[in-house]
């Protein structure tokens, strides 16, 4: 089956910026990504990395400055109502009129579609009944998020874009939203979401694109990204803290030492008992007993920090 969304070498400029003598600023430098039906594809990156801009181009809200975007086989910019009726959008800032109450809004949004979803079951599922008599202006951030998600699903879409879906959610609503995303995935929707939270990306995603400064910097399944290589056992990270000054160790090449803050160290890529023995041997020779010591599989956060670290060294 052909992918639901294909983005190739996407370029996007903003401006003209008065502070830069009216020059344009390039914010996307060739983003590429592919998203399939029945999967959750995540754009992971820090604030300002270009995630929302990429989504804006994919949703047809922004005109691109180069590269190509194909959403369900069409160019989303200036798309036909027929294409828009197959796509649901949840914007980062909600996009909800503050003076309205949630249910009249959802009914109006649903009326724009030929085959809308069952609004009542969405309302019940997302717990919108609890605050249905309150105008959107007075809702909490998490309540607004739930209404925005329901609005994105009102048209019974095939592709759904969720920009920071878990922002502002309390743990309970987060679980509700995550379960719903899982069900939509099972139902065969193509789900494209952005987040700056590693934990969310790790829990939800089938495939992750890490984006930094408008560029793809890494991509893969969570398992692929957190392992060094597919044919090796999952790498572990050892973190420890020590007060004594240490001479630099002579260790196997694949063990990288990162000093995350003064006195706190992390080794990535610990894959075998021999690797661990090399570490303890180094401590022994230096006469160091760590104050604390943990060992855990690499998380997306580790991958992300490594990439950010490399980026900083490059600058």
């Amino acid at each position, binding site marked *: 089956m052909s992918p639901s969304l294909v983005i190739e070498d996407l370029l996007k400029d903003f401006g003209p910026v008065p502070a830069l003598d009216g020059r344009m600023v390039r914010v996307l430098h060739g983003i590429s990504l592919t998203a399939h039906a029945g999967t959750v594809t995540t754009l992971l990156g820090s604030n300002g990395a270009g995630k929302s801009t990429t989504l804006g181009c994919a949703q047809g809200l*922004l005109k691109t400055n180069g590269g190509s975007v194909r959403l369900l086989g069409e160019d989303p910019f200036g798309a036909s*109502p027929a294409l828009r009726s197959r796509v649901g959008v949840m914007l980062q800032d909600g996009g909800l009129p503050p003076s309205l109450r949630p249910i009249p809004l959802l009914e109006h949004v649903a009326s*724009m579609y030929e085959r809308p979803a069952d609004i009542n079951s969405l309302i019940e599922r997302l717990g919108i009944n609890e605050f249905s008599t309150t105008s959107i202006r007075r809702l909490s951030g998490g309540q607004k998020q739930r209404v925005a998600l329901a609005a994105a699903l009102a048209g019974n879409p095939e592709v759904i874009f969720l920009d920071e879906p878990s922002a502002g959610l309390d743990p309970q609503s987060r679980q509700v939203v995550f379960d719903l995303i899982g069900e939509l995935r099972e139902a065969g929707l193509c789900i494209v979401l952005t987040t700056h939270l590693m934990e969310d990306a790790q829990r939800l995603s089938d495939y992750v694109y890490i984006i930094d400064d408008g560029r793809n910097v890494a991509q893969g399944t969570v398992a692929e990204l957190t392992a060094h290589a597919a044919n090796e056992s999952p790498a572990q990270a050892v973190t420890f803290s020590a007060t004594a000054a240490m001479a630099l160790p002579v260790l196997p090449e694949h063990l990288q030492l990162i000093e995350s803050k003064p006195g706190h160290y992390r080794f990535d890529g610990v894959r075998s008992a021999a690797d661990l023995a090399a570490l303890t041997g180094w401590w022994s020779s230096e006469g160091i007993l760590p104050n604390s010591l943990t060992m855990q599989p690499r998380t997306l956060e580790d991958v992300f920090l490594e990439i950010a670290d490399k980026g900083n060294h490059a600058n």
Partner: protein
Amino acid sequence: MRTSTQRPPAPSNAQGTIKRIMLQGRYETLGMLSNGEQLIVAAVLPMLALIGLVLTDLLSDVADSAVNAATPGVLALCVVSTAFTGQGIATGFDRRYGVLRFLSTTPLGRTGLIYGKVIAVLTVLFLQVVVIGGLAAFMGWRPAPAGIPAAIVLLILGATAFTALGLLVAGTVRPEATLAITNLAWVLLAATGGILFPSTRAPDYLQPFVDLLPSAALGDSLRAALISGTTSVSGILILLAWTIIAGFAATRWFKWN
């Protein structure tokens, strides 16, 4: 010719588009009518203007009765209230809150959003004409019958021109600035821009500029139509020109984000 097939006709795309635009028009109309500040600008202030102009003697030289002299200008004021000030402010804040972006991702799209606004403006304007016209008639207003078709054309054309101008402001500056600009313009145009008072009242050196304003074209032409039953071709042409220029500028510079 009917065919013998039993299949009901599938709704065509055009039908779907029209249905969505009508639904959006209803939604926007209800939004305008449920907003207290907008109702004050749309109904209360024009009514006060009408009563004030009838009770005072400010327009005694314009027509044979004060109410006949005042009502066309108050109808022009209704156009500016709804199409420019009310609609501009609402659009400015919808833009701030991302409502325009969100609705433009639904099958309604950007074009549907704009047509929905035009329908809402025309619907509210119709209600204003009924209310103001009714109040004026109660006070003795007798419009020239020959000028009524021209007045209807002028009201619609004026609404289109001022909607385009309202969208241009709302789509290019912050909503707070839209609020200030459209309210200030409402006051200035009402008093000195040829809306409530004939543009001939302006000082001589300002006359050529005032005559080219869409407000003067609308106010003076409505007075010509409803007081003496004459159709002002120049007024219609000036309003058309403003519609085209503002429509083009709004299309070019309106920022959705």
